[in-house]
């Protein structure tokens, strides 16, 4: 199982970091969250039926840790590299053009943010998201709808969506 776990981290750790980054808005904070999730996953790996269950379990722990951290207001500022003085790349420039969508995403409630990330980045179904969040598919729909509504309002995007 140790070797399987190592292979799992090597293969999927980066993907988990991407998701965590979108939840936290900070790569280092995301990595921190992923490390915590992977540690918990590793310590409980014997309870999992197979290696295939590692990723769903790790993702579930990741989301749980994220929700818990937001609930407790446990915002520990993360170490970051020196503030870069070089220009961002073109992808970031393009993202900046989306007029504040990123800050608006980060300002959503933890559940709304998690649902949108799992739905639009991880491409999970509502049923899968419900499993991760330990809630009903109906609650997932509600979180998604309210999250999008908040984005729409915060960005004044009504005209874009009609």
């Amino acid at each position: 199982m140790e070797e399987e776990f190592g292979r799992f981290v090597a293969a999927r750790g980066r993907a988990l970091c991407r998701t965590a980054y979108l939840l936290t808005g900070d790569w280092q904070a995301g990595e921190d969250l992923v490390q915590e999730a992977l540690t918990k996953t590793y310590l409980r790996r014997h309870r999992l039926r197979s290696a295939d269950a590692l990723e769903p379990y790790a993702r579930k722990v990741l989301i749980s840790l994220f929700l818990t951290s937001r609930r407790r207001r446990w915002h520990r500022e993360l170490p970051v590299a020196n503030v870069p003085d070089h220009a961002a790349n073109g992808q970031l420039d393009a993202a900046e053009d989306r007029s504040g969508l990123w800050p608006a995403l980060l300002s959503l409630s933890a559940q709304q943010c998690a649902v949108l990330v799992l739905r639009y980045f991880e491409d999970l179904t509502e049923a899968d998201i419900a499993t991760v969040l330990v809630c009903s598919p109906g609650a997932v729909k509600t979180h998604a709808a309210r999250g999008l509504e908040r984005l729409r309002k915060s960005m004044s995007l009504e005209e874009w969506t009609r």
Partner: protein
Amino acid sequence: MNDLEELVREELRARVAAAEAQQPAESAVELLRGVEQRIRVTRLRRRWTGAALSAVAVAAAIALPLTLLAPGPPLIPDGGGRQGPVPLSDPSLTPPGWVPVAYGDAQVSVPADWHVSTRPVCGRVGLGYVVLGTASTSLVVRNPRCRQAANRAAILQEPGIAGHPGRSASVINGIRVWRVAPVPVSGYVSYAVPALHVLVTARGPLARRLLGTLTRSPLSVVLEPGQEAAVPDGWLWRDFGGIRFAAPAGWRQEHLVVGPGCPVAVPRAGVTLVKTTTAIPISCSSGSTTAASALTAQPGVVVATGPFTQGQVPSGSHCGRLHELRACYSRPIYIGGMLDLYVYVPGWRRPTVVEIGLAGNGVVARTIFDSIRPG
């Protein structure tokens, strides 16, 4: 899917792509190393040593295979003929009620109820904390709701640090330091310490007193090039795991066969000889303390051998020759409490793992380290 949903999808992917482009390629290794450290902390919290010998198992699966045949250059350089004594850590600088916190080559002392962290801590306003990190670690907290302790400190490793000509230089406990302002937060008193490859910084009412406890770490004493430490008369030589090593005669010796459970305590002034005849479990439930007092090093040594000791050293380890044996050591990153040494005995499939407690002035640990030879 409407336009907003598509916009969200594009935004998420673009943000990830942009952020990922800024990250180093070896991020997966760093991630694994971080997991390994957390498992190590968990083990220390539970204070069991047998498991400590296998926690690095997480890293084993992707650790690069090592060439184990040739011992290679000396593990610790001989100092280019240097004959002077090795500078020591000074435990007398630790006031009563305080505990030493070592990181890399440096050590400061903090009140025992402080916390140790890798980043600034919010919400524990009554207690101080010390951050252990690298030069890129930011002590800036942007969250306006974050309430921090009045007393904070940090040891930030900066391997490439050099002298700071033009800045004000002074000496703390015999160590030359330069007053700098590397931390963009008001109130911190910061010093560059090129000899120890760190920046130390502190703020709050205890800042000056804390900085006054600066000394080199026991780890730096062990790894300092120079004359080999002589084994004092009265020390006992022990043969175990294909190696021979010396330890103080007064240390109690304990034999353990590691099995399921979490039974082994870190030996204080002791020698624990472990046979890993079954898989070492590391699934003990974790505690929650990061108190500096709980992470204090113990003066002891653990030697483990058997089919379930760690087979490969963590990536980033330093390898070389130690008395005709090939050996690798892994510098502790988060906790300076012990030095992990992997000794490859010719003909043995797995390395013998030696964990040396880094306590006191470092002489005992250095002597144990230098005494290791073929059994």
